[in-house]
C-alpha cells in the first residue's frame, strides 16, 4: 500500500445521506476479478444518463450534468464531502477501490458505515468523521463559485482551509500509522505467528470440535 502523504486537494460535495455501496459501485461491475479499473464506473447510475455495463468506453457516455462529480468546479477532486452513514450496505471493497481509482484520497462525513470505514484504510483512503455542524459549514463553502481546497495533514491530524481555518480530526493511532507508513496488515500479523500457533494449540484442547477435519 502507498504511504499517505500530506496533500492539498479540491473538495467535491455529495449532498445525500445514506449513500450505499450499491450506489458507489453498482453490482454489474463486481464481476471483475481485478482490483483496479473501477474509477470510470464510480457512482455509475448517478453519473451517467445511460445504463453502464462492464467493458464500456465511459468517455463516450452521456454525463448527468446535475451530478456533482460532473461539475466543472470539482474536476480533479481528491476529497469527497458526504453526509451521514456514508458507505452503508454491502461489504464490497470495490467501493473504496472505485473511489481510490477515481482519485479520491479522503472522504469527510458526519458518520460512516462500519465495514466501509474499515475497508477504506486497507486501500490508502482516509475517512474523516467530523461533527454534523462542521460538515454543514464545509458544504456551504464547497458549494461556492470557486471550489474549496483543503490541505490534509494526517500526521498532524488537521484539515487546513485556504482562509487559514484549521479543523482537527481524530483517527485510530494504529490505522494512522499503517496509512502513514503504507504498512501491509498481513505482514504485521504474520509477525505474531507464534502467538497464533499457541492460541490454536490451546483451543484444540479446550474446543476440539472446532478443529474437526471432514
Amino acid at each position, binding site marked *: 500500500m502507498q504511504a499517505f502523504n500530506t496533500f492539498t486537494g479540491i473538495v467535491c460535495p455529495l449532498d445525500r445521506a445514506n449513500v*450505499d455501496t450499491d450506489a458507489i459501485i453498482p453490482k454489474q461491475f463486481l464481476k471483475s476479478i481485478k482490483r483496479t479499473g473501477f474509477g470510470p464506473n464510480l457512482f455509475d447510475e448517478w453519473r451517467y444518463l445511460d445504463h453502464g455495463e462492464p467493458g464500456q468506453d465511459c468517455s463516450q457516455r452521456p454525463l448527468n450534468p446535475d451530478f456533482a462529480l460532473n461539475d466543472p468546479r470539482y474536476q480533479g477532486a481528491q476529497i469527497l464531502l458526504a453526509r451521514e452513514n456514508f458507505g452503508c450496505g454491502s461489504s464490497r471493497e470495490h467501493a473504496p477501490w472505485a473511489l481510490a481509482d477515481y482519485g479520491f484520497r479522503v472522504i469527510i462525513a458526519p458518520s*460512516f458505515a462500519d465495514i466501509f470505514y474499515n*475497508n477504506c484504510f486497507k486501500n490508502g483512503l482516509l475517512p474523516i468523521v467530523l461533527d454534523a455542524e462542521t460538515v454543514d459549514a464545509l458544504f456551504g463553502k464547497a458549494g461556492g463559485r470557486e471550489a474549496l481546497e483543503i490541505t490534509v495533514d494526517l500526521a498532524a491530524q488537521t484539515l487546513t482551509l485556504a482562509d487559514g481555518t484549521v479543523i482537527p480530526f481524530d483517527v485510530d493511532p494504529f490505522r494512522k500509522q499503517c496509512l502513514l507508513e503504507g504498512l501491509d496488515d498481513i505482514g504485521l500479523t*504474520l509477525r*505474531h505467528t507464534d*502467538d497464533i500457533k499457541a492460541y490454536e494449540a490451546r483451543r484444540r484442547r479446550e474446543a476440539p*470440535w*472446532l478443529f*474437526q477435519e471432514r
Partner: protein
Amino acid sequence: MCGKTLYDKLWAEHVVRTDEDGTALLYIDRHLVHEVTSPQAFEGLRLAGRRPWRPHAALAMPDHNVPTVNREQGIEDPISRLQVETLDENCRTFDIPEFSMTDPRQGIVHVVGPEEGATLPGMTVVCGDSHTSTHGAFGALAFGIGTSEVEHVLATQCLIQKKSKNMRVRVEGKAGTGVTAKDIALAIIGEIGTAGGTGYVIEFAGEAIRDLSMEGRMTLCNMTIEAGARAGLVAVDDKTLEYVRGRPFAPREDLWEQAVAAWRELHSDADAVFDREVVLDAAAIVPQVTWGTSPEMVAPVTGRVPDPSAEPIEVKAEGMRRALAYMGLEAGTPITEIAVDKVFIGSCTNSRIEDLRAAAAVIKGRRKADNVRQVLVVPGSGLVRRQAEAEGLDRIFIDAGFEWREPGCSMCLAMNADRLEPGERCASTSNRNFEGRQGPGGRTHLVSPEMAAAAAIAGHFVDVRAF
C-alpha cells in the same frame, strides 16, 4: 464486578493478543467464501507467495452470479462465468473445500453454512459479505468483511479488530399471528434507523425472540447489518442445539456432549451491562412494508406513505422526497393501494424451508393476479429446494403461476439474469431497497414471505393477517 455479555464472552474466547491501544488479533473459526469478493484476495496470496493458514476452516461456494434456470447449460454471461470458474480454480489451487455450482448442496452461503453445521455456536464466522451477520442466530460472532480482510483471514486465520460496544434489543411479549421475524427486524430498523447500530454488536433478546425458530432468528440477525451493526446475536438455547444436532459438520458423540456443555454458557450474564438498550413491544408490531430506498423507510401495512413536509430535519426530508420520486409514490397513499409488477421470494434473508412453507400456505389453491408479471421463488440452497419439492411446495407455487427456480442470490442483487426492469415495482423478501439494487430503476418494497406471497395473489400489498 458486573457480568459479561454474550459478545464479551465470544470476544474474549477469540483474542489471540491485544495491543496497548486495544487493537486485537481475533482468531477466526469459520471462513465462508463466495465468488464475488474472493478473486482479488486469492490473487493477493499468489502475488505474495502465501498459502492459506488453515484451508479447511474455509468453505466456498458460488452464489451471487449463478443462474437460477437451465444451470446444466452453464453460465451464459462470460464475465460471470469467469468469476465462478475463478473460484473453482482458486479452491483447487489452495485446497479450499467447495460446493461447486452443480453440487446438490450448493446455495446461498448464509443458508448453506448453518444447514451443513459449518456454522456452530461459539464460533467466529466471517465472509466477504455483509449478511454474514445471519450466523449470529447461533450465538456465533459473525460479521462481514472486505476483500483485503478475506485475504488476511486466508493468510493468517486472524483479523485485526477493535471491540465494538454492546447493545441489547429486547422484543418483549408475543408477536401476533402473521407477524414474522422479518417484520420484527424491519420494525427495529424503523425504530433505531439504518445507522442506529453503527459501532455496536446487537444482542436480540426477549420473549418474542426466544419464540422465533432458528430460521426466524437467522432472518433477524441477517438484517442486523441494515441497522448498521456488523453483528447480531441470539443466545444459545434448546432450539439452537436441536437445529445443529446431526448436521454434517457438527460434532458427534463425546465431542457433541463436550461442545453442548460449552455452548450452554453462550448467553449474557444476568448482571451484564449494555451500553445501549432498546425495548420493543412485540404485540404492537404489525406486518411491515418499506416505501423508500433505505430499509429505515418503513411503514406498517395499515399505514400510509409518509409526507416529507412533516419531517423537521431538512437532510432527512430531502432524502424522503428523493426516495418518493425514485419510487414513484405520492405521500399519503395507503400502503395497501400500492400495486406490484413482480414478486421475489428468496435471498439470504428469507429463502429457508420455513419461509417457503409460510409463503405456500398463504397462496395454496390461488393464482397470482393478472397485473403481476412474474413471481420468482428461489430457494436458498439445493437441499432447501429438495425438501420443498418433497413437501409438494413447488407444485403449490407452480399452480399459482409462480416460477420455481434453482438456488442462488438471484434478484436480491440482480448480478445474474434475474432483475427488475426500469420502473418495475417489486414486493421482495430480500434485505435492501436501495436504488437500482434489483435492477437499474427498479423499485423494491421489503416484506416478509407471507406478505410477498399475498401481494402476488392480490396484485397489491394486503394485510396478510386478514387475507
